[in-house]
């Protein structure tokens, strides 16, 4: 484990029961489908690694494994040098506050019954319970300002905001704890083009401002091309190609990467 690695995964595996297996009961030997099939990954601080793949490639399962939202069948994960899979209790909570997630659907991922102040303040309440109400309020106001929403957003509810504004609320909630790693799962695919561009620009600015490391999960190579420093192309649970973004986009080595690139409809230059 080198000092320069923030997140490291070795030989990560996760399989799920197939539909037939579910109905057959979870006995041994029931048919299983490998969603993540032996993935190795290193993430250096400050970089943006994009995991690109089509539906069913296992990219979202991989993201959930790396955050330990689900447990792998096998493999190792180290975060900041600590064994993430062995962490329990207070140590796990400490590690978790350093890794946050931005979700795809800003309409589904925000609690409609919480006002923005309560929603963005919730992670603080959990991880920094000693904070006074006033300090918490201040921190929430500051992070809302940073993501381009005024403090006047605080008493309002999700339904009062547009899709782009909701995504900003989701980003504020992820960043209020000042994490080191942000996992963004399709952060702009539910948004219109002009709004998506605003969010991509915001993510770029926040990365510089807070020295963030990004793991970007996306099916869209054009979106990935804007943000990624490295690209991992995933298919059927495996990385088929990993490399520096410019190389993967300009000189794809794997036939599947070439097929993906060739299928992207481009605007005539």
């Amino acid at each position: 484990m080198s000092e320069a690695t923030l997140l490291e995964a070795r030989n990560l595996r996760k399989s799920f029961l197939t539909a037939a297996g579910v109905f057959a009961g979870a006995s041994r030997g029931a048919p299983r489908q490998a969603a993540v099939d032996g993935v190795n990954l290193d993430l250096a601080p400050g970089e943006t690694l994009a995991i690109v793949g089509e539906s069913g490639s296992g990219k979202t399962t991989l993201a959930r494994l790396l955050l330990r939202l689900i447990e792998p069948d096998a493999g190792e994960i180290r975060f900041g040098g600590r064994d993430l899979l062995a962490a329990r209790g207070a140590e796990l909570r400490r590690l978790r506050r350093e890794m946050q997630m931005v979700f795809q659907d800003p309409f589904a991922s925000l609690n409609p019954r919480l006002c923005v102040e309560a929603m963005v303040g919730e992670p603080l309440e959990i991880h920094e319970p000693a904070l006074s109400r006033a300090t918490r309020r201040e921190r929430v106001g500051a992070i809302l300002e940073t993501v381009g929403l005024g403090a006047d957003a605080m008493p309002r509810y999700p339904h009062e905001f547009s899709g782009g504004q909701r995504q900003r609320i989701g980003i504020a909630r992820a960043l209020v704890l000042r994490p080191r790693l942000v996992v963004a799962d399709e952060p702009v695919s539910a948004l219109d083009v002009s709004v998506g561009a605003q969010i991509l620009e915001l993510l770029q600015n926040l990365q510089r401002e807070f020295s963030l490391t990004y793991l970007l999960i996306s099916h869209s190579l054009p979106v990935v091309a804007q943000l990624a420093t490295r690209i991992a192309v995933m298919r059927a649970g495996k990385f088929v190609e990993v490399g520096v973004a410019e190389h993967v986009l300009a000189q794809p080595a794997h036939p599947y990467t070439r097929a993906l690139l060739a299928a992207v409809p481009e605007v005539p230059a």
Partner: protein
Amino acid sequence: MAPLLDVCQLTVELPTPSGWVRPVNDVSFQLAPGETLGLVGESGCGKTMLSLALMGLLPPGARRAGEAWLAARNAGGAGRLNVVALGDRELVALRGREIGMVFQEPMTALNPVLRIGVQVEEAIRAHLPHSGRGGSAPGPGEIGRRALQALERAAVPEPQLRARQFPHQLSGGLRQRAMIAMALAADPQILIADEPTTALDVTVQKQILELLARLRRELGLGLLFITHDLGVVAQVADRLAVMYAGRIVEEGPVVEVLRRPRHPYTEGLLRASPQLRRRKLEPIAGVVPRLDALPPGCAFEPRCPYRRAECAAAVPELRLAAPEHRARCILVEPVVEEVTR
């Protein structure tokens, strides 16, 4: 060639608590046989409402004005029908038989508890001319054969097997092919495709776009292709119309419009669209205006980097910027249209 569809100043109004709003506002365009018109715009620009108006599927309480002339095959002596003036019974006869439609989400558009073949057969049976009279109605065997042909036409592999399967047993791409088979089952002249590939993976999207291009060529279909994706529209369309806040703000040959956009909104969309070539994206400032609070002049004026005082005075007319290329912007230096008649 005479247009299949000639839409003239079509306006749709919907009642809201704050009064009537116009999701489709003074829209005019033509669609020729074998031609694909791409309709591009962001959420709420009216592109879907426009397609629903053409199908007579507007929500209850909606008001329509303007005309949409369809060169219907069974229009009688008149030769064409104004689809926005038709009653419910006439619309039922029109849907599917003259205009077919394919939607974004094949999983929600298909009935999950009916086999694919049954659903395609249903589409065929619904459009049989006056079945029950005349005694020449095709039997179940004949309809089954036609359903298989329809699936084959949409390039569904192993149509016999797929016809016996349920929607959840098909991949997203196959489900969309089945939808296309149903939409074309009664040989319509016009196909409206509303974001037909948005829910699909790129490699599958490519196959569906190729299928639509082939069907359009072979059947001489007029295709109205609705999308938010400028790359997709560049691939499928001959002509492009860009909608903003209910109006067409720019229209013209697709490559010409994308290479030399003349409306600041089209230019903004292009600069904000991620491409494989990495470059600095330039988001469009601000947000789309609400339909119940449109600015008095150009709807894009509050967000426009080139705005002038006079932009807020009145809604600009579509001006001819180049041959067959119009933009609704006062900054367009109008060219004098060549008189050919």
